[in-house]
């Protein structure tokens, strides 16, 4: 049971964008370069994230991306679920009871456990905002800068 590279890269890319588009728009090329990821792959993710209205783009020579909302109002859950879909670990939770392959959902002894896992994942994802991650990142970057001068 894993989060795919889609979700992981999307969270990294949006966090990087958030940290680098405070004053000016940021290009996908710069983000891809800093994260050492394929620009084409990130572009596919950004199309989805833009449709979910988490980021926005401005076209043209001075164009680029920025967050569509303040980082306090975007959670890790918004970003991950936007590209990964539901966090349900089994199909019968995701699509409702009709999708239960056994047809025995009323007496299914494990469905509640899988539902419990999904709730725990979503609780964590919804409790972390992009601002929390930016603060963490900036505190680390600050520390690293200090080290360079010693």
């Amino acid at each position, binding site marked *: 049971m894993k989060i795919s590279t889609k979700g992981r890269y999307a969270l990294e890319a949006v966090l990087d964008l958030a940290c680098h588009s405070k004053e000016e728009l940021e290009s996908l090329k710069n983000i891809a370069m800093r994260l050492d990821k394929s620009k084409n792959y990130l572009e596919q993710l950004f199309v989805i994230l833009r449709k979910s209205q988490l980021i926005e783009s401005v076209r043209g020579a001075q164009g680029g991306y920025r967050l569509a909302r303040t980082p306090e109002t975007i959670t*890790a859950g918004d970003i991950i679920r936007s590209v990964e879909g539901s966090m349900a670990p089994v199909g019968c939770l995701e699509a409702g009871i009709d999708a239960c392959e056994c047809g025995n959902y009323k007496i299914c002894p494990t469905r509640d456990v899988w539902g419990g896992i999904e709730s*725990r994942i979503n609780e964590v994802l919804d409790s972390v905002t992009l601002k929390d991650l930016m603060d963490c990142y900036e505190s680390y970057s600050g520390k690293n800068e200090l080290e360079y001068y010693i």
Partner: protein
Amino acid sequence: MKLSTKGRYGLRALIDLAFYGSNGHQSLGQIAERQNISEIYLEQVFATLRKNGIVKSIKGAQGGYFLNADPDKLSVAEILRILEGDFSIIDQASEEVTNSLTLCINMNVWEKIDEEINEYLDAVTLKRLVEDYKNKLGANAPMYYI
């Protein structure tokens, strides 16, 4: 993000075995039929469970399996670790963390999810699931007689 059938079917089969096992050992055919799971697939799952000492088998025509663990002490976390392997939400070995951006995400998101899931699954015992199952069967039993 999905669990494999090994974890899903394996847990269901163990609950079934723990529930009906009070009547004596159970054949895989009986478990497979009650849980609507392929018997051939269950053989693979039970081989893993046997290797890890969770179930024991009795050979022969009247053979079958019985639970070799105390259902009150056997947690779902332990069962799923045996069936699914590492239970981390991301592929830990994929790449070494060298930048503070990934580090912050790991600390604040992925490691927290792993902690929460493990804490939750550690607290759910096989016994509790067997009791839930008993209640569900009881609540739905009148349906069979209508």
